C-alpha cells in the first residue's frame, strides 16, 4: 500500500512550496525560538518579576505552545498534501495511469509526515537544548522530554492526517484549513470546558492529546487517549479514501 516512490513524489511536491516550508518552520522551530527569546529578554529586563526561561518549566511551556502551533503546521501541510493534486487537476492524470487510487491517497500521509516530523523534532530538540542550557525552575528529564516530543508529534501528525483525509473529501484545502483550525483552536477549548457534555469531552482530539502530553492523567487512561486519536485519524482518512476511490474525475 505504501510506495516509496509515490511518497518521495509527495515530499517533492510539498518541499517545493516555499511559503509552506517557511510557515512550517515558523510554527515549529520559530515558535519555540520566539518563545524563549521573549521570556529570556523579559527575564533579563526584570529578573524579579519574570522567571528564568530555561529548565523544565520553560520546556513544558514550549511543548504547550507546540501543541497549538505544531497543530497549525500539521493542518497546513496535511491539507496541502491532501488537496493539491485535485486542485491542480493532476489527480486525474495520476489515476489514469491505472495506479490504485488507494496507493495514491495513502502516499500523502507519510509524505506530509516526512515534512512535519523533522520540523517538530527540531523544535522539541531546540526546546530541550535551551531548557538544559538556561536556568529555570525544575530540571528537564529524559522522560519529560520524551513525553513532550510524543505530545508535539501526535498533535501535528494527527491533525495533518485528518487534514489529508478531509482535503481529499472536500477536493480542496482552503476550507479544510479554516474548519480544522477553527475546531482545534477555537471550538475544542470551549467544548473541553463544558461540563454538561460529560465524558464526551474526552473524545475531543485536543483533550486526548493533552493526556498524551502528561496532563489530566488522573481523569483519562493513556490507552483511551491513544484510541481517541487513532479513531479520529481512521474516520477522517476513511472518509477521504472513500471519496478518492469513488469520485468520478
Amino acid at each position, binding site marked *: 500500500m505504501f*510506495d516509496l*516512490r*509515490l511518497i*518521495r*513524489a509527495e515530499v*517533492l*511536491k510539498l518541499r*517545493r*512550496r516555499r511559503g509552506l516550508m517557511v510557515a512550517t518552520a515558523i510554527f515549529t522551530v520559530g515558535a519555540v525560538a520566539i518563545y524563549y527569546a521573549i521570556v529570556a529578554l523579559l527575564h533579563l529586563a526584570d529578573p524579579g518579576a519574570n522567571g528564568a526561561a530555561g529548565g523544565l518549566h520553560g520546556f513544558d511551556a514550549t511543548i504547550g505552545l507546540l501543541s497549538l502551533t505544531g497543530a497549525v503546521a500539521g493542518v497546513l501541510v496535511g491539507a496541502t498534501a491532501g488537496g*493539491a493534486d485535485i486542485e*491542480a*487537476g*493532476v489527480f*486525474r*492524470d*495520476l*489515476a*489514469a*495511469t*491505472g*495506479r*490504485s487510487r488507494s496507493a*495514491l491517497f495513502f502516499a500523502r500521509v507519510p509524505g506530509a509526515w516526512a515534512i512535519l516530523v523533522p520540523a517538530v523534532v527540531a523544535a522539541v530538540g531546540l526546546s530541550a537544548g535551551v531548557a538544559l542550557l538556561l536556568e529555570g525552575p525544575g530540571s528537564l528529564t529524559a522522560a519529560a522530554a520524551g513525553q513532550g516530543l510524543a505530545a508535539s508529534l501526535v498533535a501535528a501528525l494527527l491533525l495533518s492526517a485528518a487534514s489529508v483525509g478531509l482535503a481529499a473529501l472536500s477536493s480542496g484545502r482552503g476550507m479544510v484549513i479554516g474548519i480544522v483550525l477553527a475546531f482545534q483552536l477555537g471550538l475544542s477549548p470551549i467544548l473541553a470546558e463544558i461540563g454538561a457534555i460529560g465524558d464526551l469531552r474526552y473524545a475531543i482530539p485536543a483533550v486526548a492529546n493533552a493526556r498524551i502530553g502528561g496532563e489530566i492523567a488522573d481523569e483519562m487512561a493513556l490507552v483511551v487517549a491513544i484510541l481517541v486519536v487513532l479513531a479520529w485519524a481512521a474516520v477522517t482518512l476513511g472518509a477521504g479514501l472513500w471519496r478518492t476511490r469513488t469520485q*468520478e*474525475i
Partner: protein
Amino acid sequence: MTDIAIHTQGLSKHFAQRIALESIDLSVPRGCAFGFLGPNGAGKTTLIRMLLGLAEPTSGTMRLLGHDLPSGRAEALSRVGAIVEEPRFHGHLTGRENLHVHAAARDRAAHDRVDGALHRVGLGRRGDDRVKGYSLGMRQRLGIARCLLCDPELLILDEPVNGLDPAGILEFRGIIRSLVDEGRTVWLSSHLLDEVQKTCDVAAIVDNGRIVAQGTIAELTGGGVRNIDVVASTPARAAALALQMRDVVRTAQHDGALRIDFLPEAPPTPEMVTALLRRLLDGGIEIASVAPVTHSLEERFLDMTTRLEDRS
C-alpha cells in the same frame, strides 16, 4: 496480441436523466492515428474518461489493449498515455519535476525516460523552468512528454491542439505521425475536422452521444470522387448530353462550372470521364477545364451531426 487497441460494445453513460453516451460500438485498430470527431458536448471526453477508469459506464463492455475493463484496467493503463481535456500540472514544480512526480505512479523505468521525453517534445532546455511560466503550447508538449513516460502502446489525446499556433500544430502533427510510425496507436479526440483529416488514418464521428459513422478517412469523405466540374462553352447543351449517360444522375450549375453527379455506386472512373468528354466534344462543345470534386471531412461532418440550433 489482438489487432484491436480499443473495442467497446453497447457502451452507455447516463447522468441522471441526461444521456451522455448511448450504445457506443467502436473498434480502433492498432498502429494507426484514430480521430474521434464530434461537436462540443457530443460525449468525446466522457468516453475517454470511461476508458481511463475515471468514470464508470452505465452499461456496456470495454476492452483496452486486449484487456477487459475494469478487471484488467491496471495492466491496460500501464501502457496507455493520456491527456484528458487540457494537460494539468503542478505550477510550482519544474517540467522535469512534474514528469518525475508522474513517473512515480508508473513503472520504475519511467524515471529514466524523463530526459528523452523532454527532448522529444522540444522542452529539453526548458525542462528546469517552473511550469507556471509555460505557455499553453509548452504545456501541451509537456503533456505529450508525460504520455511517453510509460513507453505507450496507446496514446489518448483529448483536444491536443487547442491553443497551439500554426507552427505548433504542424510540429504536433509531425510528433503524432512519428509516434504512429513507431507502431503506437494514437487516439485523437477533436472537434477540429481539418486536423483530424490531415493527421488521422481512421476516424469515428460522434453526435449527441451516438456514433454516427466510422471508417477510414477516405470512406468517411464519401469514398473519393463522386462528381466532376466541367467548364464548357454551352453548359445547357453539355448538361443535356451528360444526362444521356447511364451513370450520370444529375447536373447543376456550380460556381461557373457544370457539376455532373454520378451514381453513388458508380464513381467516375477515368474511362467514364473520357467517354463523357468524347460525347461533349463530339457534340461540338468546347471544354475549358475538367476537375474532380472531393468532399471534405467537414462537409460530411456537417451532414451527419446535429447543429447547435437543431438540438433545442
